[in-house]
């Protein structure tokens, strides 16, 4: 459930990136304050451990499919909120760069969805509350499952909200929510069982690790509240500012179409356009069909054509669209030619 760059708007991506950057700064600062220098190599190696263990698959009972772990909760139990968050963020960064899982601008969304919720919300507020200071097998088991489910539900909800706010996908909010939440409930249960198994294993084999790396239990709730408030404020401020900027500019499509159509209308009876327009008039199933009529129909869904912009929309005709298509292909061809030429040039200069 890595968000991709292609599905988000710059406002959402920017806000999430800023919020996660703030959390990374906060985490790094906190970590430096209560510096246990054993944590530095431990964090690095545990991140690599999550990476490696994601490559070990297991069959999920009764389904026949196979799964692997996400790992946020295991890290939180072993390292504590701040360090686990940094490790998750570093894993997601490497996945974005090397595996194209997510993207650079979507990195913030992914860090929030997969790192923030499990490390800063589900772990301190659910796992620690259930497992307590003196964990036993049942407490670990229940805590891990409850926290994993909660973390994944919040993460899935994050994906839905970010997608919806970005408006690139047309999936309706509730429909997407109803699709994502049950899937991630199942994933959460499996993840929770694995987390419980691993934590219990460590607890039996090396109980001291949970004590050392888990850190003191005292100050979690307060710091979490502070982080939550800071996160909400920063996301709100940045989101509002960016979306205000975005909405004061006309939308790209409307802008460019009105731009182009302004020119088109002056000389419609000459050149390729006239020819194509005639061709379209003759060949089209509905001569004279245009988007304006469709959107003006009372029943028709006028999703993008708001009142007052109909003028520009009315002039979307086959001619302009086709000229866009031809121009687009020509541009792509030109870009590829430039690339081919540069490659030739590069090879020659190497020899």
């Amino acid at each position, binding site marked *: *459930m890595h968000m991709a760059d*292609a599905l988000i*708007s710059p406002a959402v991506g920017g806000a999430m990136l800023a919020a996660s950057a703030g959390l990374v*700064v906060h*985490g*790094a*600062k906190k970590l*430096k304050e209560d510096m246990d220098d*054993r944590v*530095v190599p431990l*964090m*690095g*190696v545990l*991140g*690599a*451990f999550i*990476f*490696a263990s994601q*490559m*070990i*698959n*297991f*069959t999920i009972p009764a389904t026949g499919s196979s799964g692997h772990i996400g790992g946020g909760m295991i890290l939180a139990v072993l390292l504590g909120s701040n360090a686990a968050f*940094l490790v998750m963020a570093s894993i997601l960064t490497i996945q974005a*760069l*090397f595996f*194209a899982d997510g*993207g650079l*601008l979507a990195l913030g969304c992914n860090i929030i969805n997969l790192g923030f919720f499990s490390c800063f919300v589900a772990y301190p507020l659910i796992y620690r509350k259930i497992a307590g200071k003196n964990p036993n097998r049942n407490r670990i088991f229940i805590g891990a499952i409850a926290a994993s489910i909660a973390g994944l539900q919040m993460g899935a909800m994050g994906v839905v909200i970010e997608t919806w706010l970005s*408006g690139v*996908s047309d999936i309706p909010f509730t429909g997407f929510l109803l699709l994502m939440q049950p899937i991630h409930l199942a994933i959460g249960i499996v993840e929770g069982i*694995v987390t419980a*198994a691993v934590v219990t294993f*460590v607890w039996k084999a090396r109980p001291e*690790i949970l004590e050392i790396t888990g850190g003191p239990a005292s100050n979690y709730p307060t710091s979490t509240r502070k982080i939550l408030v800071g996160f909400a404020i920063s996301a709100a401020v940045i989101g509002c500012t960016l979306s205000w900027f*975005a909405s004061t500019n006309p939308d*790209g499509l409307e802008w*460019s179409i009105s731009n*182009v159509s302004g020119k*088109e209308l002056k*000389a419609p009876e*000459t050149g*390729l356009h006239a020819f194509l327009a005639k061709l379209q008039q003759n060949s*089209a*199933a509905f001569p004279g069909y245009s988007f304006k009529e469709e959107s003006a129909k009372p029943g028709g869904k006028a999703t*993008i054509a708001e009142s007052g912009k109909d003028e520009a929309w009315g002039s*979307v005709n086959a001619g302009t669209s086709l*000229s*866009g*298509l*031809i*121009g687009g292909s*020509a*541009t*792509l061809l030109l870009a590829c030619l*430039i*690339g081919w030429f540069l*490659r030739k040039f*590069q090879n020659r200069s*190497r020899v």
Partner: protein
Amino acid sequence: MSTISSSLFDVNHLDALSNQTTCIHRIDPRVKLLTTLVFIASILSLNKYQISALIPFAIYPIVLISLGNLPLKYLLRKVLLAAPFAFFIGIWNPFLDTNILFNIGPVFISGGWLSFASIMIRFTLTVFAVLALIGSTGFNAICMALEKLGVPRGFVVQLLFLYRYIFVLTEEASRMVRARSLRSFDGNGMGIRVFGSMIGNLLLRTLDRAQRIHTAMLSRGFDGEIRLAYPLKINVWDILFLLGWSALFILMRFYSLPHLMGDLFSGLVK
């Protein structure tokens, strides 16, 4: 099992590509990182129905890949491997948004198909740009750039550590997977019980390794502070690269080249 070694090979190969000395590789990593961000932001800020205006943006990854001497086929395969998520989210659009926007002859194009095509083009462009960035820069240089740009050192150190040990631990994991699959018949032992103790064992080995690394660091004078030396210098070409590309992206964002070229074509025909 093959997937483990191949994905490891992938990371290795992508990083190895950065050990070249083309003019793209010589550009300062900070500059390349910022340019890529401007590139992605300008693409994403376009309206979701706009396809023709997206196409000129292909010039940036194309130039980087050709001048940076990066293998196109290999990068293309990586883009395809990452495509499913964007595809499955985007494929709903044609069914949900059936407003007809225009037609080419008898073929009517709905807004949903337009925005779906737009999502896939955005996806291809942004992923290519990121892969070109890492292939022409390398992970260590990107970490340097991050620290110089103000990312906390703790996080940069974490990235470097993680990257270093991914190879070690993944090889260990792949040995375990091989051992398990050699002993497993009819899917026995592939379940969650064996998986749990495998992961647990891998974790214990990991913790031991962390202990050894920490001892090794201490014996080399580690005092809790990691010092990183960065020989980074921005020259005129770097500034030109950043400003030139950014100006071009913003220009392309507001002026659709394909429409202008389409006009030109119709002008020529006339």
